[in-house]
């Protein structure tokens, strides 16, 4: 079926280009490093003896779109922040492109839940701010040209000189996406970017996002609460369970299952629910969320 255990086998083909000199901690695990992003035995503990999640391991191939679904409090955002380098895991390692992730970097663009635009800058200045960080040697004209290109990509040419406060929620999130793409990161991390948007806006931004991702071959890791969004966007969906107190003692949260999306790659949002296998896929994920994601309910 499309369902796999989290300890899945690595794909045979090597997509990551590994520079031999850059493998300090990982050289002993050569087979593992073929994956573009490798997460190994991640755990995060706030209360001693009761880790929020433990033993989280997964890989992401270059150009792959991976969604993670789980209830609030299971630690999805923490996982994403660790991948971004904004948070430290209690134990475990993250490797990207053969190098360990030890802090934030321009190689990993982040789209934040609350757009996180600087309210005192216009759309143009917000994106230029990011572009200048990546290419400080660029001239003003070069930066502006690059900014315009990415603003156009998300269809906001008309609002380019507006402040974020003058934009709708969907437009702000578009700017956030354009900003993340503009620095051309090796990997894009999205923290539930469409959570606060209405269904119509969400749909159209999803379309834009998938178009950009497909045309650029961007590797994406995204948190979502929306099952349909995950099915539409993701190549693989990680199902994450909450930590819980069970009859057998405390059970930390973690990746309970990895679901491979078997729907055709060129799927359209409008016809999604007519595709063969859509309902099986959807039911499987919803069943997980309802009965298995929180062990104290299901077991």
């Amino acid at each position: 079926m499309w369902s796999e255990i989290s300890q899945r086998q690595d794909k045979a083909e090597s997509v990551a280009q590994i520079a031999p000199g850059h493998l300090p901690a990982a050289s002993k695990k050569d087979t593992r490093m073929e994956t573009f992003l490798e997460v190994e035995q991640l755990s995060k503990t706030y209360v001693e003896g009761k880790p929020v999640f433990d033993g989280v391991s997964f890989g992401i191939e270059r150009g792959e779109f991976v969604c993670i679904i789980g209830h609030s409090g299971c630690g999805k955002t923490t996982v994403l922040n660790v991948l971004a380098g904004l948070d430290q895991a209690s134990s475990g390692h993250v490797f990207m492109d053969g190098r360990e992730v030890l802090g934030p970097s321009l190689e990993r663009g982040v789209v934040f839940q609350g757009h996180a635009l600087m309210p005192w800058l216009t759309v143009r200045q917000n994106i230029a701010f990011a572009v200048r960080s990546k290419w400080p040697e660029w001239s003003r004209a070069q930066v502006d040209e690059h900014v315009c290109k990415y603003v156009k990509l998300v269809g906001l040419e008309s609002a380019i000189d507006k402040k974020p406060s003058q934009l709708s929620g969907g437009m702000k999130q578009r700017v956030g996406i354009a900003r993340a793409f503009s620095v051309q990161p090796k990997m894009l991390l999205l923290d539930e970017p469409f959570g606060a948007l209405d269904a119509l806006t969400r749909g159209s931004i999803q379309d834009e996002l998938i178009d950009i991702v497909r045309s650029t071959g961007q590797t994406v890791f995204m948190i979502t609460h929306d099952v349909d969004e995950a099915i539409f966007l993701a190549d693989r969906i990680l199902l994450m369970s909450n930590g819980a107190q069970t009859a057998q003692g405390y059970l930390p949260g973690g990746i309970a299952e990895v679901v491979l999306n078997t729907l055709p790659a060129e799927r359209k949002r409008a016809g999604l629910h007519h595709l063969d296998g859509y309902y099986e896929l959807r039911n499987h994920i919803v069943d997980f969320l309802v009965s298995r994601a929180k062990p104290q309910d299901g077991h």
Partner: protein
Amino acid sequence: MNSSLRLKSSLLSLLILTVLLAVWQIATQPRLAAPTATVTLTPEQIEYQKMLGKDPAASSTSAEAGKGAGFPTPMQMAQTIYKHLSDPIYDNGPNDKGIMIQLAHSLARVGLGFALACLAAIPLGFVIGMSPLLYRAFDPFIQVLKPISPLAWMPLALYTIKDSSISGIFVIFICSVWPMLINTAFGVASVRRDWLNVAATLELSAPRKAFEVILPAAAPTILTGMRISMGIAWLVIVAAEMLVGGTGIGYFVWNEWNNLSLTNVIFAVLVIGVVGMLLDLSFARLQKWVTYVE
């Protein structure tokens, strides 16, 4: 809608002013009962009153206008205001200077003390705000030093600095420093996590992070602190100049009180109010300029 509200409020303000002036006029009007009283006085009684220094005839006819003594009427007040404003810049020695010269002295002291306070408080506040360790370490000192009346520093300042003019500037400095320091530290410490995360993922250098993210984010709070400081500084300069003497609007008030010229004192009080308002307005303008809508 908006313009009609403005019109109504202006009319109401005007009405309040008229009522206040009328009350003032009535309260300071020469006693009308006095002339009738003189009629009933016997010549001996008038003689006795004159010996006491009270001339019933003079006080009723000239309506106490002879000297600056007593509370002025609105008309006398207007004359004084006109007199001062028509010749604002002159210098006839230490006790007779034009109002603009006195004001300039006060503003220069406030400006200098305030500028020095900015130079000290804003960078220090920035550092304290960025470091939770320093925030906690400095907090007890700030909490103890903040409530001290700036004038209480005056003897220490006079003793150590040995110059009354610089002591005045020091007093302005010490009273302006705290609101700016506290607001800057608070503004810097409460910059939204999201923006700092953006700065981190963009690998910003420390100076770029400070000047392009934290400073604009904290600017409205910092300016609020500066505005409060300026308000306090303008309150304190009057008291400080009364103590150190020599020049300034505060000294002018004290000097005119010693001259028993209430008219001049009232004039100075009005000038202090108007200048204070203008200072506050200019900071409000600046504040509006750096404020952003989220």
